[in-house]
């Protein structure tokens, strides 16, 4: 039975109302294609976790998918605010519970989840107001030195969606460029969906095994979706659509403009192909070639 599915089927089969969902990717490889499908399928009551909610979760909050947000930096990177998020937190429209850490805290939560430990120790948060704001930040005494270290609890999502440059049909996925916390989030998760720019033969994966970040054995579904990270980027494939990120400031500030955006680019298209057809001149973002030299795996 193949794991390779259309996005519609992968989301329908694996993402349920009320799930804790992670679509990771630090600026790089953020899978907007999956988020849009989840919005189209009108999932509700999701706990959305991510270091940087970014425009992707701002859209999901605006679309009413989220009951709760777990995060560490909620801005529009390099641009400004996420206004749907701000309206939810400042005005309660829609209501949104939040659980807040720092980046290191979120990384540590995924690390604990991936290692199937209940907590992760870190030297952090002394002097800050974060533990007062979030009682799940606690501490533990070192059994050697007696000192107290901060702890965060494991995060084990129901579903994690990772976008990769390439994978085989079993979901063995290779990523280069920024790696973020995708590996940790995937291993922490009950279900993993890999979305990739390219489907390749296993022989391509096996020719450079050190590049594999996610092994197929932890993957439940594979979706092949070229340009699936747009307006985010994929190193070696396409650049970030920064014009769109800049325009999100105006779109997200105005609820009517945001609704129009969702109508035109999410609800109003059947799939990723239709979304891409409505984008202005994607070729301007196509990556130039700057190839890494090959290495020898022989013996």
């Amino acid at each position, binding site marked *: 039975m193949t794991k390779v599915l259309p996005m519609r089927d992968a989301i329908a089969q694996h993402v349920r109302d009320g799930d804790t969902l992670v679509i990771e990717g*630090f*600026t*790089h490889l953020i899978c907007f294609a999956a988020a849009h499908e989840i919005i189209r399928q009108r999932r509700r009551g999701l706990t959305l976790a991510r*270091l*940087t909610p970014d425009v992707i979760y701002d859209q999901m909050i605006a679309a009413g998918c989220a009951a709760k947000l777990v*995060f*560490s*930096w*909620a*801005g529009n*990177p*390099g641009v400004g*605010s996420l206004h749907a*998020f*701000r309206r939810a*937190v*400042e005005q309660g429209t829609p209501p949104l519970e939040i659980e*807040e*850490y*720092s*980046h*290191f805290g979120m*990384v*540590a939560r*995924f*690390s604990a989840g991936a290692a199937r430990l209940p907590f992760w120790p*870190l*030297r*952090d*948060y*002394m*002097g*800050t*107001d*974060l533990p007062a*704001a979030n009682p799940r930040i606690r501490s533990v005494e070192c059994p050697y030195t007696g*000192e107290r270290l901060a702890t965060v609890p494991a995060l084990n999502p129901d579903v994690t969606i990772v976008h990769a440059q390439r994978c085989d049909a079993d979901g063995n996925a290779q990523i*280069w*460029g*920024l*790696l*973020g*916390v995708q*590996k*940790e989030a995937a291993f922490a998760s009950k279900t993993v969906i890999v979305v990739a720019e390219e489907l390749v033969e296993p022989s391509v994966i096996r020719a450079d095994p050190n590049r594999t970040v996610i092994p197929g054995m932890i993957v439940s579904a594979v979706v092949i979706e070229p340009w699936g990270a747009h307006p985010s*980027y994929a*190193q070696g494939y396409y*650049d*970030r659509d*920064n014009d769109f*990120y800049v325009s999100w400031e105006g779109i997200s500030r105005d609820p009517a403009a945001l609704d129009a955006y969702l109508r035109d680019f999410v609800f109003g298209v059947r799939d990723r192909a239709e979304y891409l057809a409505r984008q202005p001149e994607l070729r301007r973002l196509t*990556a130039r070639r*700057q190839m890494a030299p090959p290495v020898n795996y022989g013996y």
Partner: protein
Amino acid sequence: MTAVAARELRDGEVVFVGIGLPNLACNLARATHAPALVLIYESGAVGAVPERLPVSIGDPALVTGALMVCGMADVFQFFLQNGRIEVGFLGGAQVDRFGNINTTVVGDYAHPKVRLPGSGGAAEIAVHAQRTLIIARASKRAFPAAVDFITSPGHHCRGVPRRALGMPGAGPVKVITDLGILEAGAEDGELELAALYPGVTVEQVRGAVGWPLRARASLGDVAPPSARELELLRDVLDPQKRYLRGGA
């Protein structure tokens, strides 16, 4: 402000870079007196040599040509918590008299007047970097006596001095504003005026912070940006004026 910040970096140092003015300052330093500066971004790019002004700390230009790219667990555990970062750059909506920074909320946490982005990596940079530099434009709103929320700890947090809290790093050694430079007092860690830009008076700076600002007996002069620094900033590093809205 950017040129002044750049001069605080020594050649060969390892700098944890934030986006915006800190990024500009680091790239200015690389282009002038510190070509061997090692730029690390929390996204995992180490020894980055961006060929364009990165629009975010996760820009692909930070990857192409970098010395190393690693996962974020390594960045925070093996570089930052390990003590390998010599300088951390921080900015923020509010900076208080002890160098505490707020990037979380204006007002009450549960019912904020303005919800800011939050910590990102700033909390742990403030704890672990061997020293931090803060860049912020001076104003009474930006420099209250006490921040609404301590996101990144300074020299004195809710009555407890930094050292007693067990933080490995030295904290904010300089706060670079557009009027002058503040430094922590040796005794109590309270920020005091240490240097002035040409033509700025002590009273002007006092008017732009929310507490009775101490001024050192002997105030330094901040040298204005040189022609070379201005040219690099305006023509090479930020020709689109993405970050240089206020000045260099």
